[in-house]
């Protein structure tokens, strides 16, 4: 059993080993699972809320309005307004968009880079592999949040910088996973046959390795969306996220913190609960995907 990854033991709802019926399709396993149903529908709801919501409930999230600061929830403002006069419900949608944008973009980028890196490292092997893996080990050793704070302090924290920074610290997990899978695959007959027939490294990686590790990568990427959303929230809460008028759930809480004593609960609870719901949903989705794709992560 090995733990070094940033999210090794945190598998929550994994279906207990169950003999898989012959020819039962991945898709069938997925849709018959209540965990998958819950995870998928909540993720969809959050996405609809954040991206389609602003079309139905249009608010000004750019200009401050000091005539309407910190108003309690009412008919006009279902979740009240914040200290700059922004409508909190509208801000929750805008913040959700930023959180999901960063989460998904960072996870995609990290998975793409990590998959290639891991596949090359595992395929080439030997001293090159050893060297490439020490780089991964080093990046895993330094806690993500510290590196992220350092990067956010160095560069102006725009959304783009956030995505790059989170991807920069997250690609090592898929890299290590894919490297392990690649080493296992390399000794299989179909890859040996391919190499024997004269296929080069790139052909083997793109034709054989990547299709075979896709499941592992997809599951890991789903968890990384959840982790990236939490990282962005923590960073923004610490005041090192994208500056206003841009917002996300973490920066909303950073602002709300100042009015905790004033009992402005609508500045504290909605954004926090939004983070929890979204992160839970992505984790459930990851667990369900893992079950249906029959992927084993980080365990031996």
């Amino acid at each position, binding site marked *: 059993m090995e733990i070094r990854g940033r999210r090794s033991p945190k598998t929550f709802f994994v279906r207990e080993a169950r003999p898989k019926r012959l020819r039962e399709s991945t898709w069938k396993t997925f849709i018959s699972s209540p965990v998958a149903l819950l995870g998928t529908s909540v993720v969809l709801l959050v996405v609809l809320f954040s991206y389609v919501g602003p079309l139905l409930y249009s608010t000004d999230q750019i200009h401050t309005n000091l005539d309407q600061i910190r108003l309690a929830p009412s008919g006009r403002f279902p979740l009240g307004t914040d200290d700059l006069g922004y409508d909190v419900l509208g801000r929750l949608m805008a913040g959700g968009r930023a959180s999901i944008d960063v989460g998904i973009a960072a996870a995609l980028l990290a998975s793409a880079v990590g998959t290639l890196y891991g596949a090359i490292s595992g395929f080439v092997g030997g001293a090159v592999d050893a060297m490439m893996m020490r780089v991964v080990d080093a990046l895993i050793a330094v806690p993500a949040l510290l590196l992220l704070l350092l990067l956010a302090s160095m560069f102006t924290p725009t959304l783009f910088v956030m995505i790059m920074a989170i991807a920069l610290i997250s690609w090592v997990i898929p890299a290590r996973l894919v490297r392990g899978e690649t080493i296992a695959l390399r000794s299989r007959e179909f890859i040996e046959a391919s190499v024997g027939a004269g296929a080069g490294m790139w052909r083997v990686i793109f034709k054989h390795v990547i299709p075979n590790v896709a499941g592992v990568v997809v599951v890991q990427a789903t968890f990384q969306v959840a982790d990236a959303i939490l990282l962005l929230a923590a960073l923004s809460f610490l005041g090192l996220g994208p500056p206003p008028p841009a917002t996300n759930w973490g920066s909303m809480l950073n602002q709300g913190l100042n009015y905790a004593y004033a009992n402005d609960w609508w500045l504290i609870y909605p954004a926090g609960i939004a983070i929890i719901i979204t992160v*839970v949903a992505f984790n459930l989705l990851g667990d369900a995907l893992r079950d249906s794709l029959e992927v084993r992560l980080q365990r031996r």
Partner: protein
Amino acid sequence: MTRFLLRRTGQAVAVVFVVVLLVFILAHLLPGGPRAMLGLQANPVTVRQFYAENGYNRSIPVQFGKYLWRLAHGDLGFSYHYNAGVGTLLVQTLPRTALLVGFAYALGLLIALPIGVLQAARRGKFVDHALTAGALVVYSMPAFWLGLVLIIVFAIDLNWFPAEAPQGQTVGAVLSQPNALVLPVLTLAAGTVVVFSRYMRSSMLEALVQDYIRTARGKGIGEGRIIWRHALRNAILPTITLVGLSLPFVLSGAVVIEQLFNYPGMGLLFWNAAIVHDYPVLLGFTLVVGVAAVAGSLLADILYGIADPRLRVGRSS
């Protein structure tokens, strides 16, 4: 065994080298180069002097050599913001963070171990699922938000505990305000409970299917005794190792907690440094935590190899 130790140590040295290299590269990626460490207002004379002293005007390999040399002498850099050496600052703030993290660890283990054992014993039953769901929710909850809610409920509404952590300079002064430690410790412990109880659960599940458990059952030993004596003793070792290895991550969690509760430890120091762009502190702290993490995992592997003979062979990198 010796071969394993040698290879493992060699790997760790290589990883430490990469961590150092990484921090060195980051210092050069600072906006404006290493001069950024002096702050925005540094005048050209100071910059020139700083570059000459630290060799930043030489070629990159020479700079890296000089950097290694300084590190080898325990020089982690100088914070011009605090006008103190980074090493000194870390040593000053370490005891307070150690106190916070220590209490959180103790409380976390105290709660997590029974939860993990209970879940493994009732695997697949309602209790197991309920606790798993609870763990997932707490795992998905930002620690700062949990802390914020605890402050609102217990400090503002009920007025049971102060919202600010102890401000004392020494360990004794901090401990003289136990009330003020409650909320920060609780908040930090919540995250550790989730992770530790998951470790304990899976470790117990692994232990419960071993042959010696079947033997014990066959001998007619009661289920309670099997779980608490036979399985737990074997399951606790891997858990403790994993718990030890998660220290760097708990430490980074302390950054958030210390900032929220204004607790003057290493985390608050690091956060302040990020806000005021005090790069020597940021780089020095990152380096120390990275190296400590590598050393910790090396130590864990060595101790594990000594404690569990089954692992001495057949381990691959």
